[in-house]
């Protein structure tokens, strides 16, 4: 998995609440058996018209935001379906960090498994970042996972919370299946006990 340490980049503003995973990647793109190549279809139904032409008003179609690496959005980002195609599409587009007042639980977890940092900040701070993002390509936001800070283009710094284990895995790019397999003796022991206490399982 890709490591995440610091990132300074263009932030795309999406001031909508409840952006669900159906919007992030509509189901017609779930028929892939690969993880890659979904970036062109990120936000497909908002991004393209029925004939597949770009809708100029959509934020990621504006020249200033084509290279956005950060997304700033409203409350409850990533709600709905558990599809990991959502973070795959975000990552494939080139976005490495999503900032919002809150995230749906499964999406939030899925991000960490894919080298994406989701940052939850209070609404007032997200409002500041949203304004900053609206300035376009000249306003670059800096995210530092080590110090757990976000810095606006004006130099205003905000700190965020992140689970220490998730932070560690993301910073080191660790494969958590490998980490869990190192604990195989604990799992073996659990299974041996469960075979006695709950044999019907």
């Amino acid at each position, binding site marked *: 998995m890709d490591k995440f340490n610091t990132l300074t980049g263009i932030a795309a503003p999406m001031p909508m609440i409840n952006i669900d995973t159906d919007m992030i990647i509509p189901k017609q793109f*779930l028929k892939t058996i690969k993880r890659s190549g979904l970036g062109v279809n990120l936000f497909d139904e908002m991004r393209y018209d029925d004939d597949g032409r770009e809708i100029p008003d959509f934020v990621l179609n504006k020249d200033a935001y084509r290279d956005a690496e950060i997304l700033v959005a409203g409350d409850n980002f990533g*709600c709905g379906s558990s599809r990991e195609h959502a973070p795959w599409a975000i990552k494939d587009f080139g976005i490495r960090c999503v900032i919002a007042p809150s995230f749906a639980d499964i999406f939030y977890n899925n991000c960490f498994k894919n080298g994406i940092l989701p940052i939850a900040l209070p609404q007032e701070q997200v409002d500041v970042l949203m304004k900053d993002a609206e300035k376009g390509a000249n306003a670059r936001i800096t995210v530092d996972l080590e110090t757990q800070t976000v810095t606006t283009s004006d130099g205003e710094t905000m700190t965020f919370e992140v689970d220490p284990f998730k932070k560690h895995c993301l910073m080191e790019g660790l494969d958590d299946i490998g980490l869990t397999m190192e*604990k195989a003796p604990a*799992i073996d022991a659990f299974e041996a006990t469960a075979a006695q206490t709950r044999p019907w399982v």
Partner: protein
Amino acid sequence: MSPKTLYDKIWDAHVAHEAEDGTCLLYIDRHLVHEVTSPQAFEGLRMTGRKVRAPEKTIAVPDHNVPTTAGREDPSNMTEDSAIQVAALDKNAKDFGIHYYPVSDIRQGIVHIVGPEQGWTLPGMTVVCGDSHTATHGAFGALAHGIGTSEVEHVLATQTLIQKKSKNMKVEVTGKLRPGVTAKDITLSVIGATGTAGGTGYVIEYCGEAIRDLSMEGRMTVCNMAIEGGARAGLIAPDEKTFEYCMGRPHAPKGAQWEAAMEWWKTLYSDDDAEWDKVITLKGEDIAPVVTWGTSPEDVLPITANVPAAEDFEGGKVGAAQRSLEYMGLTPGTPLAEVEIDTVFIGSCTNGRIEDLRAAAAILKGKKKKEGLRAMVVPGSGLVRAQAEEEGLADIFIEAGFEWRLAGCSMCLAMNPDQLAPGERCAATSNRNFEGRQGRGGRTHLMSPAMAAAAALTGRLTDVRKLS
């Protein structure tokens, strides 16, 4: 011993390892798998040379993108990309030696219907699936999480999930429901009250007289939509109804093992003095038959209400409501009961069980759907379908002008050919009314099976209590 909630009890019984910071490896008793969220996970196993740790606890069934029309055993009757995903699941199930119900098997159906039906889902278990509606299995007092594909791979390889404990939330629905009000109205009303993020970070336990009074089917409907309220899982403590439902199912324990299981299952309830991080109480008699008007499951109103205006809301919801109203093509102030529909979809893991079909058929019996309207019933499994045929429900649907389909997810998410055209409006018994969910530009109103059947008769959103 300190008092515990049901969630605490199941959690404690499944912690295989706990790190100093509280990160746990939670042992998984049942892993359900479907064709859409699993191919990359199996590919990951192949690339790293890993095996499925507990194939006997892993169950796969194709459901999301299979056609629900006759002849689907033949892959040439599927779109090419669907056929590839189904073929991949066929192969993965075989190569890794997991239980499998192919489309040709009468037991095939929506994964969350097949699990309980076959007795894979039992009280006190941990159940996961790469699908957010895994919450359904909570109706048995099983801790059931939806997970992403990376986690699917993690569970396949290790039979555990890396988890931190959620908070406890109690949703109590007191008293009796009024006539015409169903489990779907309860679960939608709870989301209407809490919002789609109200449950984020919590595991919900539903309790109270109105919940206890529900059948197992109704309880599954309630828990199914816990995720729509943002919760990781929903739970209902097992009781005699639960045990009766499980008894004799193909994979339920038998004999002495059944007795041993029962002994434990009977301890699975929240202690009286257990502590809750959040409590919500609804009165059963206050719940009306509801429908959704917008594009979020929290956009719930009684069928007797009018379409709201964006100004009725606050904060970020003003813009969201504006966008929803535009997308849904609705004018504020219009009575919901005047909104005309083009399509009726009865099915999904929320409402595709036998009781749901009975409820819809009771409304349709001897009547015909409104002319010009498209109406479809998609039973949740091949066995539900067979039972409905035996009970004569299929005939009622067919005579009423409904299409009688084979089992699958179908128009719940429209990954198969069953889709809405842009602007088409659907009365649906499924669980999500998101933009484009049932087809690009399609407009979805969520409701109970009885309400959907009523809508089929009149061609508009309809108060089932007013049908004579």
